[in-house]
């Protein structure tokens, strides 16, 4: 990977880290209302996967997708506004932090784990039938891989060779459930075999590795060569949500060990080794932080979603 691309990915990760930190604060201040699922430590996945999509490609997320969304190109403002219930949010402020649709950016995130897997197949099927070269990416977790939806969706997509890239974001836990106690196989990529797909596991804290694996899968999909399933190994550094009693399922030592493998640190040291100047990186970071604060200030001025909105778009009155 050339340094320019890597730098872009680095900056994206830095943005996501600060964005996520800001959101956590907003949640603590009760300005984000719904359940909020932090993304700390998984930034290489969102950056390495979602930022490769074009606007007219589809991205399906889940309950932990605010960073996926921004990586796909949804603005921080539109995303923050959504989480804070403002009209300028991607869903007009009707969705919140766990579920939202940004139609213009072909972004669909829902809070029913696993359901996006068949939905992604449907979108891929449309693209295939429309003979477009659009592709679909679908993000789900280790928990998601235990749902019936996973099996039905993967089988259909693989069978019909649909242009879908399934990203199994294995962050080691589904809420308090460790992956080894919930998934009967290891590595999880073994599940690809049920659909005659390649078994791929990549280091999800290495943004370059993620990027390269996903780039291949996207090219395949665009070329009409069908579905991929990629397991991306990472770790959820923070609780499942804010207030998660983490002590019930893991030790501080385990978390600390994973903090060593921070994807941003790793990428930074590679960039430095490739001759990028530290102060250049720091300057970029300052700019990112500054802009984020401007975004937040802007959102705080935005009007809340209204009752009229909430009842307007339930259904489309019948034509008679």
């Amino acid at each position, binding site marked *: 990977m050339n340094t320019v691309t890597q730098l872009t990915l680095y900056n994206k990760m830095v943005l996501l880290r600060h964005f996520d930190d800001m959101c956590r604060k907003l949640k603590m201040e009760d300005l984000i209302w719904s359940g909020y699922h932090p993304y700390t430590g998984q930034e290489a996945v969102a950056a390495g996967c979602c930022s490769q999509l074009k606007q007219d490609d589809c991205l399906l997320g889940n309950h932990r997708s605010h960073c996926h969304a921004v990586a796909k190109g949804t603005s921080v403002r539109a995303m923050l506004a959504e989480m804070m219930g403002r009209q300028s949010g991607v869903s007009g402020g009707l969705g919140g932090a766990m579920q939202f*649709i940004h139609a213009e950016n072909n972004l669909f995130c*829902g809070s*029913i784990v696993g359901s996006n897997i068949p939905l992604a197949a449907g979108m891929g099927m449309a693209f295939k039938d429309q003979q477009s070269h659009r592709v679909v990416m679908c993000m789900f977790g280790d928990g998601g891989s235990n749902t019936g939806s996973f099996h039905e969706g993967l089988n259909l997509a693989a069978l019909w060779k649909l242009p879908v890239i399934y990203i199994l974001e294995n962050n080691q836990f589904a809420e308090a459930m460790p992956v080894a106690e919930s998934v009967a196989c290891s590595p999880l990529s073994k599940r690809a075999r049920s659909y005659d797909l390649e078994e791929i596991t990549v280091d999800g804290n290495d943004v370059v590795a993620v990027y390269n694996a996903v780039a291949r899968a996207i090219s395949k999909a665009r070329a009409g060569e069908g579905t991929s399933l990629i397991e991306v190994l990472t770790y959820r550094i923070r609780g499942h949500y804010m207030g998660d009693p983490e002590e019930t399922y893991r030790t501080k030592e385990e978390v600390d060990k994973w903090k060593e493998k921070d994807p941003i640190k790793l990428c930074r040291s590679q960039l430095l080794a490739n001759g990028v100047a530290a102060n250049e990186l720091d300057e970029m970071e300052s700019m990112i932080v500054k802009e984020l604060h401007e975004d937040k200030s802007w959102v705080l001025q935005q009007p809340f979603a209204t009752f009229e909105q909430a009842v307007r778009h339930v259904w489309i009155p019948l*034509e008679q």
Partner: protein
Amino acid sequence: MTETQVVTYGEALGQAYREEMLRDENVYLIGEDVGRWGSLYRSSKGLLAQFGPKRVKDAPLSEAAIAGCAVGSAAMGMRPIAEIMYIDFITIAMDQIVNHAAKWYQLSNGKVKMPIVFRTQGGAGRRNSSQHSQSLENWFVNIPGLVVVMPSSPYEIKGLLKSAVRDNNPVMFIEHKSLYFAKEEIPIEEYLIPLGVANVKREGSDVTVIATSWMVSFAINAAEQLQKEGISCEVIDPRTLWPLDKETILRSVEKTKHCVVVTEAPAEGGWSAEAAAVVFEGCFQLLKKPVTRVTGMRTGIPYGSVLEMQVIPNEEKIVKAIRNLLNK
């Protein structure tokens, strides 16, 4: 006068498919054996040959995937008709229908339309016992975002399906397994039946009988029988359970001042309660007697024709209920 043809419910459905698929190339069919077999009751027979496998998709045995595929592709501009072979299996597709199809229009703040027809069939009458004979329509009536249609005859199914396909809401289109071979004279010319409009199947002055799906024919027969005794029944087929054409129903009850609701589903928590409540609410002053609900019993549908007909409404039970109501 328009020219007519005699067709079965299944054939009328096939005609509706064909016409809509020719009209709009975004319309496609997906389901288990909708292609090779042409569906369990052969309603889509010939479509695979005519339109090819892109438009008529035989899916694996995966109801959640079928429904999810419909939702995903609808969001990308297609107009799926997704068949769930028996309504009993819709239990496996509920998440996609309720949490996604019914929610995305609102969740996208009005930007993503969901022009999907979820076709399925329910009810008893074909001796397949309790896991293949349920009447679950009221589940969907209680879900904001869904339209619910129950066609009761060949004429109805053709016109209603065509409207359902053209509608931009997710439509639950619930057929009845005992109707596929029912015959009726219908126009040869294209026609549509608007959603949300009830059909006064038979005019009458003494009592309004609201009946759905298969129950419409039993209600008509009961009405014919009672006619001989001098009792005049108005029979209304709501056709669309939601949105409900309250106006037609209330206008009728204002006239007859008596009302019977007939559904195959059990009373408790069923759509008969909704219909009764609407009538009570709208005609409280005029009603001479409480609305009577004639419904399926609170039991799983047992095996065999004799027992099936003993636990669901039939002509005799409807006649009896009407006589009771009118004290005759």
